[in-house]
């Protein structure tokens, strides 16, 4: 009898402590480069400090092509994480429809999120049948041309202020043994066609192709200019000069080994960590210096529905994290480090660097929906296959490319 009492007392004590103790919340994401890792650490710090819970960081390598499938199969396979980051867009569409994501409507009900989101279209992909299933945490955009001041100093030319000047400077760069366009192998090339389309082709072209899925727009003269720009780009890149990751391209730009690169704003985080100062060591041209709108993609956080019988404290931690991610404090700290734009309009961005300020100015023109928003991942995969082939194989002519792209767009969903 005595023994039983002791055991029971211990059991209650244990139970008591576990419920009072902090819970672990596993968060998956693919923020793995130096700048990105520093940014996500800001979220973790705030989460642990404010709630006392423990952020279990599961960073996955391989970005949208490598990490995304892992995340999706874990959720489908019944082993969901506490929270996960994914690109804002249609990747998670079917997961939401299948009821695998937690509805956040009630959690953020009192925050009046509609009022402070920079662009309400950001929330569109998160909504399904009256529910809210994800929270965009930043706006980032592919539409940046990064230029090396060191490289242009070497050839004695001013740093270009738009795409055309940049293209005109290539012969001089090549003569001086500088790579006109630095490129990392693998996925970084996937974003380039979209950037060229938005910058050179203009906003109307992007909307006609991505939103209206009009194959005639692909066959038109505006898109031909885009295809020709890609043609000239593939002539100055080769698999031999590619570096392993986009962070390495950042280093090439800072050292002046490569003159330019088209890459998303997350490169800014890496440039800063490597000691680069915008305007001094590198220049940035949002929209290639010609576009007036940025394509707004971004990262969103999703909170998978956890299995029956999960500790209510974990569910509470999910809710706490959801509210924290879009709080002004977390938004400011995270985005300053990452180099992306916050989703809130009501925070003080005077600490932003020169590049971010340029982007904030462009935000007033509204955002262009990125390919992630309007094209299914199936269509994106097909376009990616085509772009990769076109970039590597010079025997695919511009005409072939346009025709094949038009066919994919005609069948797009």
């Amino acid at each position, binding site marked *: 009898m005595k023994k039983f009492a002791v055991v029971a007392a211990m059991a209650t004590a244990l139970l008591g402590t576990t419920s009072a103790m902090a819970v672990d919340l596993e968060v998956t994401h693919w923020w793995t480069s130096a700048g990105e890792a520093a940014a996500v650490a800001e979220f973790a710090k705030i989460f642990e400090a404010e709630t006392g819970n423990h952020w279990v960081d599961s960073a996955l390598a391989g970005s949208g092509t490598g990490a995304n499938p892992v995340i999706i199969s874990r959720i489908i396979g019944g082993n969901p994480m506490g929270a996960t980051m994914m690109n804002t867009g249609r990747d998670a569409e079917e997961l939401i429809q299948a009821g695998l994501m937690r509805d956040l409507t009630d959690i953020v009900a009192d925050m009046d999120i509609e009022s402070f989101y920079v662009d309400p279209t950001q929330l569109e992909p998160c909504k399904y049948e009256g529910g809210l299933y994800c929270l965009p945490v930043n706006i980032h955009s592919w539409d940046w041309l990064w230029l090396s001041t060191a490289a242009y100093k070497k050839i004695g030319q001013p740093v270009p202020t738009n795409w055309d000047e940049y293209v005109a400077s290539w012969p001089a760069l090549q003569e001086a043994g500088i790579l006109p366009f630095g490129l990392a192998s693998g996925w970084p090339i996937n974003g380039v066609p979209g950037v060229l389309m938005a910058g050179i082709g203009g906003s109307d072209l992007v909307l006609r192709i991505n939103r209206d899925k009009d194959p005639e727009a692909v066959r038109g003269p505006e898109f031909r200019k885009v295809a020709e720009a890609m043609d000239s780009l593939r002539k100055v890149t080769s698999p031999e000069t590619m570096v392993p990751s986009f962070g390495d391209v950042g280093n090439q730009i800072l050292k002046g080994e490569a003159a330019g690169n088209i890459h998303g704003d997350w490169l800014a985080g890496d440039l800063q960590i490597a000691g680069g100062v915008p305007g001094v060591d590198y220049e940035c041209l949002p929209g290639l210096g010609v576009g007036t709108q940025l394509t707004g993609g971004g990262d969103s956080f999703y909170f998978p529905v956890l299995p029956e019988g999960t500790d209510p404290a974990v569910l509470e931690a999910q809710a706490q994290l959801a509210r924290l991610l879009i709080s002004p404090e977390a938004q400011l700290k995270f985005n300053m480090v990452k180099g992306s734009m916050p989703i809130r309009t009501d925070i003080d961005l005077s600490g932003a660097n020169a590049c971010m300020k340029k982007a904030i100015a462009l935000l007033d023109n509204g955002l262009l929906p990125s390919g992630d928003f309007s094209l299914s991942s199936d269509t994106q995969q097909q376009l990616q296959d085509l772009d990769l*082939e076109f970039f590597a194989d010079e025997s695919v002519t511009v005409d072939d490319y346009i025709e094949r792209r038009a066919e994919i767009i005609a069948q797009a969903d």
Partner: protein
Amino acid sequence: MADIAVKSGEEARDVARPGLLQKTFLKNLPAKIAALPMMATVLVVFVGCTIWTIYYSFTNSKLLPTGKFVGFEQYERLFAANRWNISVTNLLTYGAMSLVLTLGLGFLLAVLMDQKIRFESAFRTIMLYPFALSFIVTGLVWQWIMNPTLGLQGAIRNLGWEGFTFDWISNPRMVLFALLIAGLWQGVGFCMVLMLAGLRGVDEEIWKAARVDGIPTWRTYISIVLPMMRGVLVTAVVLIGSGIVRLYDLVVALTNGGPGISSEVPAKYVVNYMFSGGNIGQAMAAATMMLVTVLIIMVPWAYLEFGGKGKRA
């Protein structure tokens, strides 16, 4: 009394003419019970999943298997896709070269090993070591070796031979050979060990007889020993062949399908469209085509191997 007599009579009849059902299920019962888990695995995992795969290749399922029946639509798209056609051509080219070279080199090495050399087991271990590495490691190792700026080419150029070129991995026309080098490096040792076991299984008396008849050694190997190693050869072909069809990890680690899409393979198409493309229908159509290809090769072979036995005997 009468009842018992009738019963025993029935029993006697049953024992004398056991039904087909009894013969199938009751004969050697413990062995059959022991085989049940394996049979369940075969039925559920292999046959079941194959049927599942084929069924969903006729639907328009996207991320989740929920699509409607659409007939041959996925197959039409598959055969129109440039990437798929390149993948198939690549696999056929790689497969033919890999099969011939692995068998050829494996046999040659085995014959060399068979010459009663010193430190044979040391050599055998060295040759077999690459097989202990996964394709991912093999791919990464060779990716570094063949990287034009950091690998062999860079090293030799730094030594002073400026004109030296070894850029297969970044050359769309040569990249399949780069894959082949890595694949052979990994696979030949294993083939050699199989062949060596086959060679050792040949009776010493046959060698003596051949020597008495004055047949040259190379001729003995080709015309007498090799035909006697039929079983080992079949095993080797099946193992190498299955390795070729599912070729995926080596490509991912070594080239990731590049440059461009010049080293894509069918298995990678399936995985890409299933996961990052979120298109189960398309991926299953591609997987079904892989299965059909294997069947086209396997069925005639199996027919010759097992169906023709009666005639030969």
